[in-house]
């Protein structure tokens, strides 16, 4: 799985309430959720995000509620990959289960700047900052996680007999 996009950067402890505020949880429509993604953290996110962009953040990304609406909103916004120093555990599961690619890479999360162009090859475990030329290593995903993400989530992977 390869991804290339521009970086949108946030800090530590980005919680699910700012990713998608509960006042919008009266729907599970992904377009409606995407329309309010990151609204309470960065009102400019919606106008700025482009299909394929990569989110980068600090520690404990996705902490708080178990709402699967959070990774759904991020994915439907066009974000192709989230790189963080660390993820909260429920978010880690929900992102993989709905087919949003995520990867822990503290070095990249520290070094990469907002607006940089980044390329990531998760099968090989390589993240490259095309703007600065820096390269970072990550743990490659095990095959079954690659299957889930490439199928577009656990439901499709399960119904297609891939897992």
């Amino acid at each position, binding site marked *: 799985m390869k991804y290339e996009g521009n970086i949108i950067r946030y800090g530590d402890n980005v919680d699910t309430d700012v990713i998608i505020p509960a006042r919008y949880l*009266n729907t599970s429509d992904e377009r409606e959720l995407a329309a309010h993604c990151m609204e309470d953290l960065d009102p400019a996110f919606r106008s700025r995000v482009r299909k394929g962009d990569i989110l980068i953040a600090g520690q404990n990304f996705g902490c708080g509620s178990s709402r699967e609406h959070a990774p759904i909103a991020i994915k439907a916004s066009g974000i192709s990959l989230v790189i963080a120093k660390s993820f909260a555990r429920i978010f880690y599961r929900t992102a993989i289960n709905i087919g949003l690619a995520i990867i822990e890479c503290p070095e990249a999360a520290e070094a990469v700047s907002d607006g940089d162009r980044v390329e990531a090859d998760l099968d090989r475990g390589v993240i490259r900052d095309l703007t600065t030329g820096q390269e970072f290593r990550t743990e490659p995903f095990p095959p079954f996680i690659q299957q889930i993400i490439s199928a577009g989530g656990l439901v499709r992977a399960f119904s297609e007999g891939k897992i």
Partner: protein
Amino acid sequence: MGMTMTQKILAAHAGADRVAAGQLILASLDRILGNDITAPVAVRAFSGMGTPAVSDPEKIVLVMDHFVPNKDIKAAEQCCICRDFSREQGIRHFYDAGRAGIEHALLPEQGLVTAGDVVIGADSHTCTYGALGAFSTGIGSTDMAFGMASGKGWFRVPSAVRFHLTGSLRRFVSGKDVILHIIGKIGVEGARYRSMEFDGDGVSALSVSDRLCIANMAIEAGAKNGIFPVDEQTLAYLSAHGAAEPRIFKADADAQYDAEYEIDLSEIGPTVAFPHLPENTKTFSEIGNIPVQQVVIGSCTNGRLEDLRAAAEILKGRHCAESLRVIVIPATQQTYLDAMDEGLLRIFVESGAVVSAPTCGPCLGGHMGVLAAGERAVATTNRNFVGRMGHPESEVYLASPAVAAASAVTGRITSPEEVMA
């Protein structure tokens, strides 16, 4: 190497003699829980899995609690999805407004969880049931769908952090102060991916209600679960609520822990978590004059009868400050009735508080007490993230029912020791 209490429960549910931290296992589930926000997403995922019927409708519990009584048309439609699904699938444990309450107060009260169970819930505060000696953890809607289809869930076996409790709580100090104190000490990711295992002589000095409150907020330290050993109090509680026969698991004496903390309960004072993270804790020597415009007493963390009693003790014969609104929310229908029988609801209403039907409502800024820009609330809830209770420029201060009630009287964040002096 020995196993922790959590590891022993998981091993038994995975059909294994032993499991080790980091191992991936497929475990059988005793309960699968969802609510009016997360279950509709799970129902959609379930319908995409190509399995016409759930594996065991008796294991599934659906509780309509977040936006009920329905706050708007969309919320009402989410409940319809759950109602229809329950009917189609023969799910008996479907709890609608009027028969329900906040899920994590309701399940223990209805005897739906017993010691030794493995419970998953598409709600992060599912970790509450660790207070009863169960392994319980929050998961997402897709995990819930997989659980409904297969009766199983996959887990990475967690390592653990041990909290050895000694002593007993001072007057006006409760389980809420204990868990805020601990989160302040270890941080919001201090137990990330791990179990928080509580033990020591101090456990017996904590009521089941205090333990439920402590385990409830394990997620606020990033934990996978929080768990207490089973003692006489647990067994009496389970029996009184008609729970299934408990299965008692104990941590091995040589179990390994990533970290160990000694907590002397008698040293903990009333504690408040300042915006915008539960780890931003302060005690009253560090808290100045902070006026608030709203007080919320309720939630899955602190909406049980014992919590309402603690608040009523302070509000009895006193008036809420005119500068604020006070909202009291009994967590379940039964709690509401009990509070009525004990005269607590009269105390609240006479003091100038609103008493609401059971709902999660204001805790997540849904309804029944949403904040405007610039407003502050003292709440007995569990999260104080940006925008959690309403406008992104509002603020939430997390505290115990006693602190919330004392603050209601003065209109600023106040220690119960000051009001009751």
